[in-house]
């Protein structure tokens, strides 16, 4: 490998192009079920281990085997981790999409492809690196059955040679992937080596893209949002987990099962300090969560759009009967079945007001894996403090993709269990009124079922009730109760996670976003400043109800762009409800809803075109 550098330099000189270092996207196009996941993960990790900021997006079909899938890896020396529309390197392994994928490349890009696909004839402005995958895999993998799985590792080796990835890092990443399975490590590494050697022997480097070591990932971790949320739930002390499988949320509970089995078995008795049940449907999952929350447990479920729709009736019950619950909504593309494996922020309005009658719910909007962890813990505290369902609004992009992050900090605060009266409290008070606003914050006191005192019990119902939890159809009781619930929501406004605000130079243009849209906006802010001298202010929403600072931010800007991943400007609509008429007029939209993660160019483009009309 020592000679690589010199040869590469030589090649570069002959190509006469200026070198592009640590700023490229690699798109790997495969067929799902072909075992490309290992090769792609290893590639991602190897770049990460070289200290280069990296991100990955897996675009996969709603299918088990045989349909096209794309895996995009972006390396960015500036640390940008949003999706980029263009790729500099295409690895074309899927005969069905190869031509289309190739034609989408911009001039000057490079294409590594399965020789049999004969792509060279299609373009003359792309650098081609044909690889005879089948010929290369046979000698390194004598077992024909395994070849399909190992074959993909060859492109890791080819890319390592072409881009300058250290093979040692490929080896380290494989060890991480297969842990103690030394045979699997060797087999896959030999395939990668075969690819490397073939590229070394065969190709003249004719593209300008390189990866070089940096020191920007030291100490960082790589994790997907669903696993991060699962970790958060475990450290939030969750005890009851009810779920029904649905993409893209299933991996949250599956990860949680793994963590809980490892760390939440009582060492003395060998028994579980948790109950995790795969329910018969989402109706049952939320019912079980509410039953458990009512009985005092920290209970959660995780689902996506169709599940949220099914849970509507019960969530209204949770709101009105005031029962804590944490519900993860890993948003995917709707309506209906929609695009089950594509990302969206399309459930904002339906979740905010889920269920019939006057209902509104607390929602948290994590943008990163760190926030999936920390907001999980906050969600459980808020649910018990406010005795209400709390939604953690993730999306497929955050939940199912791998993201680099700083290690998560251990929670600083003890569990906040909310207003629960103990046996001693009841003895001292002689009784209590479940729905009475004793403290003026709209939050009543509750007792937990099983409290051994005749005055501790009460009747919880979704029908009309008075302060003492007794059935009532009296107009005054109803209004009194509903107004208190509204007061409770107002209290929450200042207790939920604050927005993150970054001031611009002049208060002319403001941008508002939330969740994963944040990463494209961050990059867009730089594009607007560097390329157009626009210094916009930025407010990242982290929760609903909106903190008063959000309205202040809108007030002090002339035009405010709400960036989100849905068709109907759902967050903008929600903001409008909190704003005076002159505030409403300031709001504009940047919308993206094709199911792919948002990219910065789309944000900048939509803002610039609207500014031009100004």
């Amino acid at each position, binding site marked *: 490998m020592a000679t690589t550098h010199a040869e590469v330099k030589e090649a570069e000189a002959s190509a006469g192009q200026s070198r592009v270092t640590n700023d490229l996207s690699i798109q790997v196009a495969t067929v799902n079920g072909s075992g490309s996941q290992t090769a792609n993960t290893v590639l991602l990790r190897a770049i990460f281990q070289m200290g280069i900021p990296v991100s990955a997006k897996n675009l996969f079909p709603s299918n088990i085997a045989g349909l096209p899938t794309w895996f995009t890896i972006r390396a960015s020396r500036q640390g940008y981790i949003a999706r980029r529309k263009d790729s500099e390197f295409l690895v074309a392994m899927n005969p069905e999409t190869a031509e289309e994928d190739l034609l989408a490349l911009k001039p000057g890009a490079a294409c590594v492809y399965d020789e049999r696909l004969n792509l060279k004839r299609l373009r003359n402005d792309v650098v081609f690196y044909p690889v005879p995958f089948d010929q290369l895999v046979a000698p390194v993998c004598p077992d024909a059955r395994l070849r399909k799985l190992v074959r993909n590792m060859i492109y890791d080796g080819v890319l390592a040679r072409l881009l300058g990835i250290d093979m040692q890092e490929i080896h380290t990443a494989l060890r991480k992937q297969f842990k103690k399975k030394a045979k699997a490590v060797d087999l896959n590494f030999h395939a990668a080596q075969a690819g490397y050697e073939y590229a070394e022997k065969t190709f003249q480097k004719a593209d300008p893209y390189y990866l070089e070591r940096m020191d920007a990932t030291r*100490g960082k*971790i790589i*994790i997907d949002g669903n696993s991060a949320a699962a*970790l958060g739930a*475990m*450290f*939030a*002390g969750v*005890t*009851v987990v*009810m779920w029904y499988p649905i993409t893209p949320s299933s991996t949250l509970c599956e990860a949680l099962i793994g963590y809980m089995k490892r*760390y*939440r078995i009582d060492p003395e*008795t060998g*028994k*579980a*300090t*948790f*109950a995790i*049940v795969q*329910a*018969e449907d989402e*109706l*049952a*999952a939320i*019912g*079980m*969560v*509410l*039953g*458990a*929350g*009512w*009985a*005092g*447990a920290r*209970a959660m479920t995780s689902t996506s759009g169709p599940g949220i729709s099914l849970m509507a009736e*019960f969530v209204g*019950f949770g709101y009105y009967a005031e029962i804590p619950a944490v519900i993860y909504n890993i948003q995917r593309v709707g309506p209906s079945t929609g695009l089950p494996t594509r990302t969206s922020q399309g459930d904002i309005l339906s979740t905010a007001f889920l269920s019939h009658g006057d209902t509104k719910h607390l929602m948290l909007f994590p943008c990163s894996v760190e926030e999936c962890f920390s907001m999980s813990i906050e969600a459980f505290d808020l649910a018990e403090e406010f005795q209400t369902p709390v939604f953690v609004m993730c999306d497929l992009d955050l939940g199912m993709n791998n993201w680099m992050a700083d*290690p*998560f900090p*251990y*929670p600083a605060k*003890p*569990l906040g269990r909310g207003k629960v009266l103990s046996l001693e409290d009841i003895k001292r008070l002689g009784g209590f009124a479940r729905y009475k606003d004793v403290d003026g914050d709209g939050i009543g006191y509750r007792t*937990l*079922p*099983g409290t*051994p*005192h*005749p005055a501790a*019990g*009460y*009747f*919880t*119902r*979704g*029908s009309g009730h008075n302060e*003492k939890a007794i*059935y009532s159809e009296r107009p005054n009781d109803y209004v009194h109760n509903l107004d208190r619930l509204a007061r409770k929501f107002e209290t929450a406004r200042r207790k939920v996670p604050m927005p993150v605000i970054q001031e611009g130079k002049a208060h002319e243009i403001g941008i508002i976003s939330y969740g994963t849209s944040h990463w494209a906006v961050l990059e867009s802010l730089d594009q607007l400043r560097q390329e157009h001298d626009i210094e916009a202010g930025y407010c990242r929403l982290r929760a609903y109800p909106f903190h008063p600072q959000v309205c202040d931010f809108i007030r002090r800007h002339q035009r405010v762009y709400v960036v989100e991943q849905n068709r109907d400007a759902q967050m903008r609509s929600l903001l409008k409800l909190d704003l005076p008429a002159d505030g409403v007029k300031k709001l504009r939209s940047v919308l993206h809803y094709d199911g792919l993660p948002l990219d910065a160019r789309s944000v900048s483009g939509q803002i610039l075109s609207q500014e031009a009309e100004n």
Partner: protein
Amino acid sequence: MATPTVPPASPAKVNRLGLEMASYKGNRSTLCAGCGHNAISERIIEACYEMGVEPHRVAKLSGIGCSSKSPAYFLGSAYGLNAVHGRMPSVATGAVLANRQLLALGVSGDGDTASIGIGQFVHLMRRNLPVLYIIEDNGVYGLTKGQFSATADLGSKLKTGVVNDLPAIDTCALAIQLGASYVARSFSGDKKQLLALLKGALAHHGTSMLDVISPCVTFNDHEGSTKSYSYVKDHDEPLADVSFVPFFEEISVDYDPGSTTDITMHDGSHLLLKKLATDYDPTNKTEALRLLTESHDKGEIITGLFYVDTKRESFLDLLNLVDEPLATLPESRVRPPKQVLDELMEELR
């Protein structure tokens, strides 16, 4: 919480906890006078009193409908939760998993169970979670003024003359087939049998399913209905004479080993089934299902304990839960220490 009662006779009669019957009563019923559901509430009060159930340990759970209103009319100092239509089983499951020391007493109706709630019903039966599930079964939607439910018998008539042309769902057969471990049918008018079956269910560790035929005096107590008082009285075929001896009492003298099946419950109490017409083995699942099918074909309403399995693991055992309620485990047992997070972070580097 109010427990309006008649003044106790003196000296007050108390149960083994020192509680009077009054401690087990609830609010005044708002159901129709003569409603079979009220008789069931009375039997629940007696059963809990006689068994010495601690009211605070009881979680009264229900869905929606006339039946689901009834938990307000017994055990006033217990905890209650009136959920949404057909979804009591899931709430019961969550509550029991959160606090395994609770005694979940679910009351449902035939509409709440056999129509809108059938999905949750069958899965509760499968799991064999310790829940006492009572169906107050009148074959009709009372609260929406008299539409057929899915337990209405084929050919039975509504007051309006409408004839039911679909076969009935037999909730007992379904429960047995799916894995409930204590399955019985009774009649709200049969005080002795219903009380004994309720007490047996309270002593059982697993899912107890009691389908109690409970005539609706307003919408379904007329000629042509197969769930009217007169019809059920004429067609009721008790399987056995049921009596129950709690673990804290000696078995009484009329025990006759030759003619009585003795079932020992988890807590050491005894359910005694004195043979009537048939020689019936309530631990045989296949026989139970055969009996239900045959009696249905004959147009008989068999009542009694159809099936019991005191050996089957409950869902709590299956989940290997700690002995204490999950709901109140201290932070030290539910939030792993910092070194666990450090270890996990190290693995993800």
